[in-house]
């Protein structure tokens, strides 16, 4: 139930992210352009130039420096945001671990895009999956509206958890798709995100501290143990913040997973981001011909909601897992591997079928979604397939 009439704006995913950033009015934004998230940087610098925000914008010379500036500014206590994609995220890789380990709540919007080589500017999740063990939270959005609201929630989640957070959307499909976005007032956003209360500040010259010391075998392990504890705690924070947001503004955003038609379903498909939209439509149509299929969309991939997935997936006979990335391990896509691991303790578990699809922006059509559903239905009936199936490919 909507509590009031929200202002509706037609925005692309990039515009929605930039608009949320404008309303957040962070202390520092340091960013570097890369397709398909360049627009975020462009739009935001125009906000700065027009005085619509009083953020300090640092137009750095690389993504490595973007994240380094973010780290410096965040360690000084500032609220810091950035945006990137693909090669840019890969170039930041080293710094991602430092941001999370120094417990800096940086929020980064990622327009998910394939990694080179061969160079490709279109959607897949290779970039995000490369940073899945970096200690960042990762929230994947289905559409521009969700992007807008997730960016706002991410600020609060990150700052409560003292962990950085990526808000991700599919390159071009979502970054450039225009959709109605229900927006809050600037004041509502400000009241929701409040002020950042940092754990520490490198600007505290009265009580100086050393940050990023050399940490050898006698302490490093304990520090890492502490960090993983913080990630566990972040799960509760994510739930609380999303609940607070939903209650306050009358939304129904998922914290970890969104369920679609799962109640009476016998089989299920698991997906992230924009592919969920296509699958929902395919599910509606397939249900008309009696296939009882549901969808679980994973919104928060890090921390990984294994408890929820174990609980929700156990009842199905067959589960298809959609991966828009390869691990090149020969074991399948990253999501399927983690879901298999999540279900392992169960005595009776569904058959897990991995589908790899949409690499480099290959379209995931309604026909492809039908195909996926038919395969899962066949598995329910006892048919066997290869462990990993590639969907929408010429083979």
């Amino acid at each position, binding site marked *: 139930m909507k509590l009031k009439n929200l202002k509706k704006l037609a925005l692309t995913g990039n515009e929605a992210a930039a608009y949320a950033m404008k309303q957040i009015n962070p202390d520092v934004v340091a960013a570097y352009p890369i397709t398909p998230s360049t627009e975020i940087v462009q739009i935001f610098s125009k906000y700065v130039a027009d005085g619509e925000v009083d953020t300090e914008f*640092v137009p750095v010379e690389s993504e490595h420096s973007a994240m380094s500036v973010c780290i410096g500014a965040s360690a000084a206590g500032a609220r810091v945001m950035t945006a990137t994609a693909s090669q840019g995220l890969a170039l930041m890789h080293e710094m991602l671990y430092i941001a999370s380990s120094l417990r800096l709540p940086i929020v980064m919007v990622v327009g998910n895009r394939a990694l080179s080589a061969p160079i490709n500017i279109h959607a897949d999740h290779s970039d995000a999956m490369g940073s899945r063990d970096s200690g960042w939270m990762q929230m994947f959005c289905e559409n521009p509206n969700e992007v807008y609201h997730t960016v706002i929630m991410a600020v609060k989640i990150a700052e409560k958890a003292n962990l950085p957070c990526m808000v991700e959307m599919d390159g071009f499909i979502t970054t450039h798709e225009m959709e109605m976005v229900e927006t809050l007032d600037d004041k509502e956003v400000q009241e929701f995100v409040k002020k950042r209360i940092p754990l520490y500040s490198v600007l505290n010259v009265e009580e100086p501290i050393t940050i990023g*010391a050399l940490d050898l075998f006698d*302490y490093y392990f304990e520090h890492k143990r502490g960090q993983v504890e913080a990630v566990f705690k972040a799960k509760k924070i994510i739930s609380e913040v999303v609940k607070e947001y939903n209650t306050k503004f009358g939304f129904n955003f998922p914290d970890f997973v969104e369920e679609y038609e799962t109640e009476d379903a016998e089989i299920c498909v698991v997906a992230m981001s924009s592919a969920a939209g296509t699958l929902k439509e395919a599910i509606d149509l397939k249900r008309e011909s009696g296939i009882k299929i549901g969808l679980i969309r994973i919104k928060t991939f890090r921390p990984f909601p294994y408890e929820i997935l174990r609980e929700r997936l156990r009842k199905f006979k067959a589960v298809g897992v959609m991966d828009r990335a390869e691990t090149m391990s020969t074991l399948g896509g990253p999501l399927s591997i983690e879901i298999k691991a999540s279900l392992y303790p169960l005595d009776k578990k569904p058959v897990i079928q991995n589908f790899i699809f949409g690499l480099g922006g290959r379209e995931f059509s309604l026909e492809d979604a039908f195909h996926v559903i038919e395969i899962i239905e066949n598995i329910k009936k006892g048919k066997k397939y290869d462990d990993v199936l590639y969907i929408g490919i010429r083979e």
Partner: protein
Amino acid sequence: MKKNFISLKELSERNIGLAPGHRACAGCPFPSIVRMVLSASDNPVVVANATGCLEVTSTIFPYSAWPVPWIHSAFENVAATIAGIETAFRVFKKRGIIPENKKINFIAFGGDGATYDIGLQALSGAIERGHNFLYILYDNQAYMNTGIQRSSATPFGANTTTSPAGKVIPGKLQDRKDITEIIAAHGTPYVAQASPSHFYDFISKIRKAFEIKGPKFIAVLSPCVPGWGYRENESIEIAKLAVETCFWPLYEIEHGVYKLTYKPAKKLPVRIWLEKQERFKHLINREELITEIQKKVDEKWERLLNLDGKKIF
């Protein structure tokens, strides 16, 4: 009295530097360099440190030798890190979170690897964007932390573990980059070369740098006992000889104006400096190579003499 004057007495009373117990090698000059930089500041400082010897020897958890706020993030990004901190400071002032009159000097320390090589891009970017910070390059002319590998600061002929003097190849075959000139070419408001042997000259440069708004860069020679191969009590002597031979001239470029801040009364032959160090041992009987090194030193020195007092930008 000059604005940036500080008496030796006052300086020694301030005595802000690395606390005892750091693990720098015996005879390493960088603890003295850090002490000079921190003590020279009239305002509180915030330090960012690149990965390297200084960082690893001064902050082995749970200990820290730093009496000031200090951050280490990575090897190649110290300029970007200090840029982020300085940006936060500015926005906090703009937003009234920090009082407008509050003064902090932002200092980045990097070794030659962190400066000439892997961190050059981040440094160049931070300078171009005009962040208000002082970059101190402590130049020990190789990657010492990882065991004396060549860097682009390593001089021609030097023996390092990745430019070993062998039967065929006489150490490093390339000249070092002239980092001071590279930074000056950015139009950096203040650029200088200094040596811990000429500490008063160094301190004046630090203090001058703190007075100037925008990016500042000081390259200070930091001889390395194990890396260069000499006795522990000789670091300052070696640094001094580098200056007296004009291998490492002391000069500054303030708003584009060159100034030699020290001219040796008698320019010594570079051989005297080379002979003192193990890393050049294999060159001692290679007269043609020593002549080549001397020729390059002379050319650079001549160039500086010509530029002395001139404005380049």
